[in-house]
């Protein structure tokens, strides 16, 4: 039984997982820096520029500061859950990266290595399942802190995530009607075909709903109600200190990175380079070009995330719920109906 396992495949996937996780963490590390720089530039100031050239070592200084801080676990908290909270948030954030196609296949040592950890045929459902797990990190952390503010924030976070997942799912159903598959690798390959545009052309309204819901799922401004510094004293991670707090804020950035990747994959052609026929290049070059193209798209999305954050004030809680249930859900339903009608009418 053991001998029948393809050990090289096992090793190959293990290396890929390690690369993806470290790359996600590294990108999240520098996203914290980019966030401060973008905030600064939008507010006419230079931002962090003292640590290293152009302040590039700032994230390491921040990380060192967090690690050196005193670790406080409140006496009245539920200690097991208190420690579990940030780890759940981080794990859920990183798990999503498993089904994302990072680029086309690489040919190495006579083997064809797909740059995707698992091309499961229910890729989108998997992403949804894991993203919904992310709310447990907030819920458990907020509840285990045994603090009224944290509990309020956890409740808000949970109800917000559930409301916005609905609209997000409905907007995705319309996308699935046009693609006809849940497999992420297949969705990208469809968009790469000559004569086929990126899905944003077919689903502009669906994308708009999806990006709004992605902001809410990542707890980013204007939907950062679980954190709400000025009403809830920093929200669900109020009692956290040291690296546990670091894990929470870090998982937010990992989430932002992953949802940017998902948006690029679903609506903007994934690793596709526009107006370039990748099959003319040698497979390894095409793979490298693909990774770079995907990362450029992701950087643009992350910039949009930050740009929105430093422009719009936070929504009030009733506005948030009204927007979710009374505007986005009907819009997503209408989008779904229109897409279905068009598919029937055009006979595609």
């Amino acid at each position: 039984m053991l001998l029948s396992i393809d050990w090289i495949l096992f090793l190959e996937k293990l290396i890929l997982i390690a690369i993806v996780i470290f790359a996600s963490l590294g990108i999240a590390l520098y996203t914290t820096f980019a966030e401060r720089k973008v905030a600064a530039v939008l507010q006419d100031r230079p931002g962090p520029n003292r640590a290293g050239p152009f302040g590039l070592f700032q994230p390491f200084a921040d990380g060192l500061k967090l690690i050196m801080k005193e670790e406080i676990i409140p006496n009245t908290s539920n200690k097991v859950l208190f420690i579990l909270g940030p780890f759940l948030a981080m794990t859920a954030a990183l798990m999503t990266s498993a089904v994302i196609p990072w680029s086309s296949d690489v040919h190495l040592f006579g083997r064809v290595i797909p740059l995707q950890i698992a091309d499961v045929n229910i890729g989108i459902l998997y992403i949804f399942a894991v993203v919904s797990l992310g709310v447990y990190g907030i819920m458990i952390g907020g509840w285990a802190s045994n603090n009224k503010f944290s509990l309020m924030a956890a409740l808000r976070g949970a109800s917000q995530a559930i409301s916005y997942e609905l609209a997000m799912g409905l907007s995705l159903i319309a996308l699935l009607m046009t693609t006809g598959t849940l497999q992420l690798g297949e969705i990208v390959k469809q968009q790469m075909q000559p004569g086929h545009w990126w899905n944003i052309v077919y689903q502009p309204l669906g994308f708009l709903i999806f990006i709004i819901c992605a902001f809410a799922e990542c707890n980013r401004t204007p939907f950062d109600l679980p954190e709400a510094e000025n009403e809830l004293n920093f929200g669900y991670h109020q009692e956290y200190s040291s690296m546990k707090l670091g894990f929470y804020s870090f998982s937010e950035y990992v989430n932002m990175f992953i949802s940017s990747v998902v948006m690029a994959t679903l609506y903007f052609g994934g690793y596709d380079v526009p107006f370039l026929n990748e099959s003319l290049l040698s497979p390894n070059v095409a793979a490298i070009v693909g990774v770079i193209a995907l990362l450029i798209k992701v950087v643009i999305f992350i910039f949009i995330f930050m740009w929105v954050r430093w422009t719009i004030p936070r929504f009030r809680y009733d506005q948030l719920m009204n927007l979710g249930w009374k505007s986005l859900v009907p819009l997503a339903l209408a989008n779904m109906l229109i897409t279905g009608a068009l598919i029937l009418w055009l006979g595609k």
Partner: protein
Amino acid sequence: MQALTNRAQPVNRKPMTFLERLYLINIFKGMLITFSHIFKKQPTIQYPEQKRPFSPVFRGLHVLNRDEEGRERCTACGLCAVACPAEAITMEAAERLPGEENLYREEKYAARYEINMLRCIFCGLCEEACPKDAIYLSETFAPANFNRNTFIYGKEDLLIPNPVTEPEAYAKAKGLN
């Protein structure tokens, strides 16, 4: 109630339309405003490397002046201490001995002259009260320190360098180069 200005506007309480409730158009307008700020000039001054020039009437740390032969001008008359609203200045007078004519300009001089920079409000009244042009407010301010008693500046901190024996330091203190 009488309006104070004619600029008052009644609050618009019309319910929002569907497009307004989506917030998208106004959010987009706001994002264009913040984007335009990327290209604006930053007013930041990188402090230790760059310094903002003070105006010529800036009132900073005090300087006890010397005349062109390098003699102290202060005669310890005490007018500055009287003028000081914060009572930051104390001094002790002494009589000039024969042979000290190259040190002190007049027969009487300040043996001890102290200003408490934590009390001082940098109003410049001492400068105005001085009949001998002996005290001036310079264009530097007191540096930060960990210890309170380091803010009591004595004569050695306040006196300007001697223009005859140390012309370079004197020129630097005067801000001539």
